[in-house]
């Protein structure tokens, strides 16, 4: 994400002629106007919204719960009773997928923004305060970047048991915020020298108020993009960790554990694997579309809309 251009905060000012400025919209509106006319954005939003709704109400349409074992119909393909088929012990794949999606969505939607929040806070603080605090924080960020997060998780995962998925949220957030924090820190350093920040400081406005009022809103577009793409990272992280057995622990299900269970049968009974995999890919694809559209709308050099 470090490739995002430093934001030109005055884009609107340079786009408009001074004489007609009052008629033009603020930068936020400009982004919205660009976003509105991007089909990718609407496709992504629609798909994500439908999937969230499905995750919430999906179990109403089936009388199977994910833990029920229909031993008579184990290892059968999709049918009127088991829409997505069943697995070795007769559990309904449809019900398991819905529940797994819930977990993946919850982890993604919480861990992504949480990581962004953390990077906004740490990055802007370090960049604004500078000096010793900044050096210490930078050192810490660099340390975290080289710590083998996966290895750590392998060590602690046996201790977590059925609370693993909550721990996983914090774990993923804790290991994905650093790069963005560095970006925010660099942006803050340049914002700190802007006159409006100096003015606020000389009025006696406190550090945290300055961060909240002046710094964070001015990097908000970066943060929104990061949070969106962070959702994707978090879901991928969760599924891959669970796939290898270090994330969500049975009997809890997530899309990752479903995939892990289904891999061995992928060739003989493909439904065990294909349905959860399809749902996962669709979700990732839709969220990426939103993130992508956001990035194009915010980065003025990428869009054809630039006047």
């Amino acid at each position, binding site marked *: 994400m470090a490739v995002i251009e430093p934001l030109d905060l*005055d884009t609107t*000012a340079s786009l408009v002629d001074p*004489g007609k*400025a009052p008629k033009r919209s603020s930068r936020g509106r400009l982004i919205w106007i660009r976003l509105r006319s991007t089909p990718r954005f609407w496709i992504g939003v629609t798909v994500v919204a439908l999937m969230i709704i499905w995750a919430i109400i999906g179990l109403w349409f089936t009388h199977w719960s994910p833990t029920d074992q229909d031993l008579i119909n184990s290892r059968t393909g999709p049918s009127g009773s088991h829409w997505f088929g069943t697995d070795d012990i007769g559990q309904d794949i449809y019900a398991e997928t819905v529940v797994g999606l819930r977990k993946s969505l919850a982890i993604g939607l919480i861990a992504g923004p949480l990581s962004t929040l953390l990077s906004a806070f740490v990055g802007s603080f370090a960049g604004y305060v500078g000096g010793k605090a900044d050096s210490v924080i930078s050192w810490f960020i660099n340390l975290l970047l080289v710590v083998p997060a996966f290895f750590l998780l392998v060590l602690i995962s046996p201790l977590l048991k059925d609370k693993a998925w909550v721990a996983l949220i914090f774990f993923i957030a804790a290991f994905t915020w650093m790069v963005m924090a560095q970006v925010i820190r660099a942006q803050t350093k340049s914002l700190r020298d802007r006159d409006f920040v100096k003015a606020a400081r000389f009025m*006696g406005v406190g550090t945290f108020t300055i961060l909240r*009022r002046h710094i964070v809103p001015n990097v908000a577009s970066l943060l929104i993009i990061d949070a969106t793409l962070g959702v994707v990272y978090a879901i991928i992280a969760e599924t891959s960790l669970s796939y290898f057995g270090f994330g969500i622990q049975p009997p809890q299900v997530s899309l990752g554990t479903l995939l892990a269970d289904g891999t061995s049968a992928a060739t003989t009974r493909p439904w065990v694997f294909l349905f959860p995999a399809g749902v996962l890919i669709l979700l990732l694809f839709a969220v990426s579309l939103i993130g992508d559209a956001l990035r194009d709308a915010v980065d003025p050099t990428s869009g054809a809309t630039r006047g």
Partner: protein
Amino acid sequence: MVNAPLLEVRNLSVDFPQNNSTVHAVRDISYVINRGEFLGIVGESGSGKSVSSMAVMGLLPSSAQVSGDILFRGESLLDMDDRKLSRLRGNEIAMIFQDPLSALTPVYTVGNQIAEGLLLHDKALSKQAAATRAVELLRIVGIPAPERRVKAFPHEFSGGMRQRVMIAIAIANNPNLIIADEPTTALDVTIQAQILEVLQKAKEITGAAVVLITHDLGVVAGNADRIAVMYAGKLVETGSVDDVFNRPHMPYTLGLLRSVPNLITAGKTRLVPLEGRPPSLDALPPGCPFEQRCPIAIDACRETEPPLLSIGSSHEAACLRAPEIAAGQLQAADVFPRPEPIPAADQAKVEGRTVLEVTDVKRYFTLTRGAVFKREIGKVKAVDGISFDIHEGEVLGLVGESGCGKSTTILEILELTSPQDGSIKIDGVDVSTLTKDQRLAKRKDIQVVFQDPMAALDPRLTIEDIVAEPLTVHNVSKADQRRRVGELLDTVGLEASMGSRYPHEFSGGQRQRIGIARALATEPKLLILDEPVSALDVSIQAGVINLLEDLKERLGLSYLFVAHDLAVVRQIADKVAVMYLGRIVESGRVADVFARPHHPYTQALMSAVPIPDPDAERSRKRILLDGDLPSPTDEISGCRFHSRCPLFKVLDPSLQQRCLTEDPQLRVIDTSSAACHHAELNTLQVT
């Protein structure tokens, strides 16, 4: 065609198609430049000055739609093929830009870049000869030790020296026409004076005609033969400088001339503001583009756009009422009357307490190199022992060129902590004794207005939130904040209903008013104004200066007014302090210092300021300074001005010795003080 003029522009129009509108940047302009003539084009930002001359150079972006004709010695440039055009561009027409750094290639030495131009246009020239000529050209444009400096890279040169290199490249092939677009806008006045001198010299040597684009009327008055005034993409008045400056016929020119502070008359009369701003170039009204700002507009002005009509020999103006102005029925003073000063009854009573007292403040920066093991490689004495005080209701103008330590000084004051060395007292209280809470409370009394009004306002906040920000620190209720913001906007001449808008919706002058409103929110006693008008168009400056004058009178404020423009300082300040390399070299009451400057630097600074009056300019004697400001890391023994001092040069060697060894301190001379050992011997004259 031998008799054709050098350059003839006929009905030139340039349009830039946009998404759903078209920007008419230049509209149907025609002018002629004869051999050896010096034409000045003036106009405010966005009036089409640059676009019209880019069209002549064929340097417009491909999106531009050009119509009309441009004839160079009778040949049409618009029909010419690319090869011929680029040959012409190097040989016959040369261009000098505002920002020389971006016009020079960073990876080649300046010598190579000059030689390249020479070789490209004269295939017969040997490399050796080109190199020799490069040195010669650098000498002509006044680069010291040119044999050595040809091998330097552009970034090793200061802004002024780069501009000299640009001029050297421009005159390398003896062009017939030199177009200079704001060549001195980014430079300090003393350097500007040098560059203009070099430009004049280049013109003499090559016999070329010069087109100088600028927003500074003074620069035109002092250098050009003819002037063309542009407004909203149109030529609205042209003529000889004498005709136009002394007998302007277009109300815009009239207003512009009355709105600029003039170093000679500044401070004696109030400025005349020219309110409003030009119409948007993609939605022009049908009539005269100046109609909305014109105090003498009549109904007919709204219907048809007045053409450029002749008023006298080669003097033309585009105004329906120009004949009345010509006949003397409309006088400048009636069209743009001078605003009245604040009546005595409304003026705040001031007791003359000392609001700010700065004593012997120093601020050194150490330069370090290396990321892990930092080692000191030098020391910058940004502020090196300065003292001044400001009383209630008083304005102190702090002037000096960029890099002399003005900004460091005000930041030191604004921190409200004890300075590295020396002391700062606000309202008699030494800031180093303040506790955290007391310091916060003190911040009420001292507020700041920055130079660039766009950068000083957070683009994400509404005007109301911006102006209310200082109040949020001091526990003011939301309702009170809102009420106060309304009052403040009213005070600075904006409408309270504008509070919900965002900064980018305002013009430069309005934004600066918002910045001033914010600074006034806590009812401070002292405002620190850091170049408050230098980022504004000239026509807007007067309004802001008048506002500051009024506020001072009505509220009894004190200002520390930092500026590089001496005319503005003379207009608004009561006292002035001139800074050079971290020191105050002269200070006193404005009337005294400007009437009889004692320090040679003050004299040079004053004489470098262009005066928007061709007669005054012609009778002036200039004191030109040599070279640039020394590098701030240099250790200078003796007087820090001696490397450039014009008085030092004419002194007897026995007297020079003292300048070289002994650091002069401020001492009282007549009614002001100056830091020069030999001020009494100073017979240099300035006007």
